[in-house]
């Protein structure tokens, strides 16, 4: 068990890196997902088709393949994802600015993959708003954008917050995959490194790593359960 205390800094830095990529990927996926959701409900048929194609593609691909594409495809396109080296951001998220691109590749893959699920969560919220609301707004002469902005989206938020939360939890769990795609030092890679290269006993390391993930997922899940119960009562 002493490995948990001796190597506490290794676990902590792994946790910190996983937290970083989850935070960045969550923000990216929320932005991209909202754009795709608006595309999917927009009045322009080609945009709707585009949004639907995006969602169908990424929902049906294993994240593993998306990661492989990011790790092999982007270099083949001659890109090291340098556009993610945003000045200022790389002070907090130091991995964004390093010369090794795998953190950025993994981030792109996570964002692309999660955005499809974010889109579906937002859209399920929009569909939960009673049809009469949007019809009333239309009969007042509101345009599509006004309709969304003033009438539908504010009401859809309550219905989409729980699905959105589950998407984010799933994303945190999916982020464990990045350790197997060249990102060094996140929680999952720490497990591999400590047990195989470092020769540490397996059980304590497994416990430490599990605690690291459970700290992120279990409280979020409990919070969602609470929100869900409260909403059930309100309904």
């Amino acid at each position, binding site marked *: 068990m002493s490995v948990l205390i001796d190597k506490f800094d290794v676990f902590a830095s792994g946790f910190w890196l996983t937290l970083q990529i989850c935070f960045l990927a969550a923000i990216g996926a929320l932005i991209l997902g909202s754009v795709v959701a608006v595309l*999917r*409900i927009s*009045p*322009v*048929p*080609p945009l709707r088709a585009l949004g639907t194609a995006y969602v*169908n593609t990424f*929902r*049906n*691909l*294993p*994240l*593993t*393949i998306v990661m*492989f*594409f990011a790790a*092999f*495809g982007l270099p*083949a*396109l*001659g890109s090291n994802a340098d556009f993610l080296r945003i000045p200022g951001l790389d002070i907090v998220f130091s991995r964004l600015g390093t010369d090794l691109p795998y953190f950025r590749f993994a981030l792109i893959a996570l964002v692309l993959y*999660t955005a499809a*699920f974010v889109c579906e969560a937002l859209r*399920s919220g*929009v*569909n939960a708003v009673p049809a009469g609301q*949007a*019809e009333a707004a*239309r009969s007042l002469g509101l*345009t*599509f954008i006004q*309709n969304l902005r003033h009438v539908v989206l504010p009401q859809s938020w309550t219905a989409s917050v*729980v*699905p959105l939360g*589950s*998407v984010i939890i*799933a*994303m945190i*769990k*999916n982020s*464990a*995959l990045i350790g197997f795609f060249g990102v060094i030092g996140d929680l*999952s890679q720490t*497990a*591999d490194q400590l*047990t195989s290269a470092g020769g540490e006993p*397996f*059980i304590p390391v*497994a416990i430490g790593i*599990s605690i690291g*993930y*459970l700290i992120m*997922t*279990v409280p979020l*899940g409990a919070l*969602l359960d609470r929100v*869900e119960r409260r*909403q*059930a009562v309100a*309904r």
Partner: protein
Amino acid sequence: MTQQSSVLYDVPGPRQRRITLFGSVAALIGLLVGAYFLIYQPLDETGQFSMELWGPLIDPGNENFALVWERLGVGIRNTLIAAALAIVTSLVVGTLLAVLRIQLKGLAQRRYAGLAPQLAYLLRGLNLTLSVVTRFCVEVFRGLPVVITIFFVARGFPEFGITFDNLWYLVIGLTIYNSVVIAEILRSGMQGLAGGQAEAAAAIGLAPLQTTRMILLPQAFRIMLPALISQLVVVLKDTSLGFIISYEETLNIGKQIIGVLDNPIQVYTVLAVLFIAVNYSLSKLAQAVQRRLSRGRRAADTPAQPPAAALASQARISEANGDS
């Protein structure tokens, strides 16, 4: 879906349709030009479109074609075997776990008044321990990434001197995670049923286990079928994680092919198309089942909708299928 989202805007008139048409043609041309310079050119420069790289995958005349597809066939078969085993075991274990948790919850109210006090306390203590343990397992395994579970299984079992084929590590890892998820799906389905179902079963003299088995479980399966099917799609997708423990599934075979032929982009494109085709048809199947079920309910003139609570949690669960 279409009818619901078209509520958001008026049906476009002739002018709007013209604008849409011209706009999309212009945007399409813009996109094609952009794609040519940003994607096609860099790929073409590195020779990614050459028959040398694509040939083994799409040209039946190529010398490697037969071998490549034979290997891929092995990979696909292994993926399907792992997925089928994992699906069956998770369904069985998940159902048992759901029944166990429901039973324990029912027994928690029982005081065992007819028995000797010590025995009654012992039984109640046992009951409490079991429910705490199952609750703990559910929370832990639901919160752990499935990659980590598989990794731990593959590393942990040899630690205790138990070794299997890689297939079984993958199946056990997938089962641990998915059975817990399936148990929660079924449990929320059973708890979402109207209280009258269990009460009526008790009134005609069914024992608690009989009630669960004959009344609650079949209805929960029915209500939660769409969520269950999408969870099974998740299992199929998750078998691709077998590559981290070097199980020879589709992706791993793909990697081997890449190791020989050095054509990662081409192989992954073909694999992506395969995965999308299979998973997309499975999702469509889930939708068809859902539609059929809701029609069946209306036709049978039973309560038209499943209880709101069950629906809500079902929505939540099916949205949660982000697991790789």
